[in-house]
């Protein structure tokens, strides 16, 4: 995608991705076909066609994870999947025990569930990452108790791209027969996940992070004894009673196709991202007092997160326009809150606030990266030229 000077340059693929053209076409075909819209719960011929289309998509999703089709429960996105997994498991198993474990650097769609469960009387152990951003499996080990029912640790972090060692985490949980949930919103469709090798019980995914439509996601629920969930939403037999409501046929068709395409393109995409990220980092790393967050560990190459000393986060966002990127600052809000993920990794508030997350897509090209380099350099230099001397505090704590 070449862009002229003021054209937005989209580098926010970790927030959401454009729908693949083939996916959009399949969705449109469904919306426009004479009976493609029918209610999949209807027993008539049109309904059965919709149900068959949904089962096909379920097979495509299952293939992405090497799961069985009936282990895939369609939801409205990863937020709902996380809620279903966490509330569903905690409430279902509350009689056996009320202790739960998660991490402070999870997405809000996980942390807020655990906070709500604390208010319901559950006890939650909040694990901090090492300064690297990684969870030390030994810490997890020692947090587990006889009454621990659920562990939720994400796969790829949405801000930093840090990849947790979910193989070790899953193995530790399985050994103690504790349910393990992972929020894989940022990894599913981008990194290979094989639930036959990875002893995970619950895994959240969402279509819009890998070129499928927004508003549709899934929860993988392993077909194992003990892996039952209390529903979050009630009202019908759909999705094996775990998620009732008229199924959105066009959305599910799009999700299924996106999953199939993602599996095929995964390897090439990652290679492409790696090159783009290196080019971008090489183009800005000589700026004084900047920090690559997550630099010490394995990160998903589609994300580069950089903090700079002596700049304000919101001003950075305006300064880098027309880049579309994400900020470590809560822009346009009075809270002025900065990224809790970066702070948990030892970033100062100012450093977290200044962070910019660049994230790449399949169609991102070198000219966009070069534009990003130019805008980022300009913004940092411009804002530092405005800053009072002496306040350009070093960003390394």
């Amino acid at each position: 995608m070449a862009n002229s000077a003021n054209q937005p340059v989209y580098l926010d693929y970790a927030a959401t991705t454009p729908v693949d053209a083939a996916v959009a076409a399949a969705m449109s075909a469904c919306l426009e076909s004479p009976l493609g819209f029918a209610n999949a719960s209807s027993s008539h011929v049109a309904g059965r066609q919709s149900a068959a289309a949904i089962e096909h998509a379920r097979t495509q999703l299952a293939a992405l994870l090497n799961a069985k089709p009936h282990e895939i429960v369609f939801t409205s996105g990863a937020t709902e999947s996380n809620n279903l997994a966490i509330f569903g498991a905690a409430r279902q198993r509350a009689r056996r025990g009320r202790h739960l474990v998660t991490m402070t650097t999870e997405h809000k769609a996980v942390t807020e569930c655990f906070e709500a469960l604390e208010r319901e009387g559950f006890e939650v152990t909040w694990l901090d990452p090492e300064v690297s951003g990684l969870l030390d499996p030994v810490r997890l080990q020692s947090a587990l108790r006889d009454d621990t029912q659920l562990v939720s640790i994400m796969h790829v972090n949405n801000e930093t791209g840090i990849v947790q060692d979910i193989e070790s985490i899953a193995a530790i949980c399985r050994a103690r027969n504790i349910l393990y949930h992972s929020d894989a919103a940022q990894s599913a469709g981008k990194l290979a996940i094989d639930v036959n090798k990875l002893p995970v019980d619950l895994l959240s995914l969402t279509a819009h992070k890998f070129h499928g439509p927004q508003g549709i996601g899934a929860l993988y629920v392993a077909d194992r004894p003990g892996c039952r969930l209390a529903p979050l939403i009630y009202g019908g037999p759909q999705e094996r009673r775990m998620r009732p409501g008229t199924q959105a046929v066009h959305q599910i068709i799009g999700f299924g196709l996106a999953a199939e395409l993602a599996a095929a393109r995964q390897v090439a995409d990652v290679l492409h991202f790696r090159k783009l990220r290196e080019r971008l980092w090489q183009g800005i790393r000589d700026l004084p007092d900047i920090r690559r967050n997550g630099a010490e560990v394995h990160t998903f190459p589609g994300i580069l997160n950089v903090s700079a000393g002596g700049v304000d986060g919101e001003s950075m966002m305006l300064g880098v326009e027309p880049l579309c990127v994400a900020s470590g600052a809560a822009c346009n809000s009075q809270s002025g809150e900065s990224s809790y993920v970066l702070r948990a990794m030892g970033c100062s508030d100012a450093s977290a606030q200044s962070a910019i997350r660049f994230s790449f897509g399949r169609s991102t090209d070198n000219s966009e990266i070069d534009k990003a380099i130019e805008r980022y350099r300009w913004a940092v230099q411009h804002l530092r030229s405005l800053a009072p001397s002496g306040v350009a505090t070093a960003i390394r704590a």
Partner: protein
Amino acid sequence: MQDPYSNRVRGYFVNPVHAGNLQKSYSSDVSVTVDDRQGNTIQLAAGIDGDTLQELRFRALACPHLIAAAEYFCGRFEGRATTSLREFDPRETVRELQIPVSKTGRILLLEDAIQLLRQKIGDNSHS
């Protein structure tokens, strides 16, 4: 959502001609620094000859609205009497620069800095 940055805010943000240090020296140079808990910092410097604000400069580590407001302030009061500073009205700035309601709190930091500047000028003129 609407663009939170009006064209004037954008203009001042990109090209804040009053950013930096005083260019000359004056019979009296006054400067102040204020900051808030969110890490915003504003520095104002005034070069005064007699009763006149000959030159106004700012430095800021702040959000775009605060940068723009500081620039707008310097441009508006430069060349005027030191006593005119009491006419500074944050509401006028909010209106002129179309600052969103959620950000008006930030402008108070500028008001604080201006107040401090007035005090210091007053102190200086009496000394």
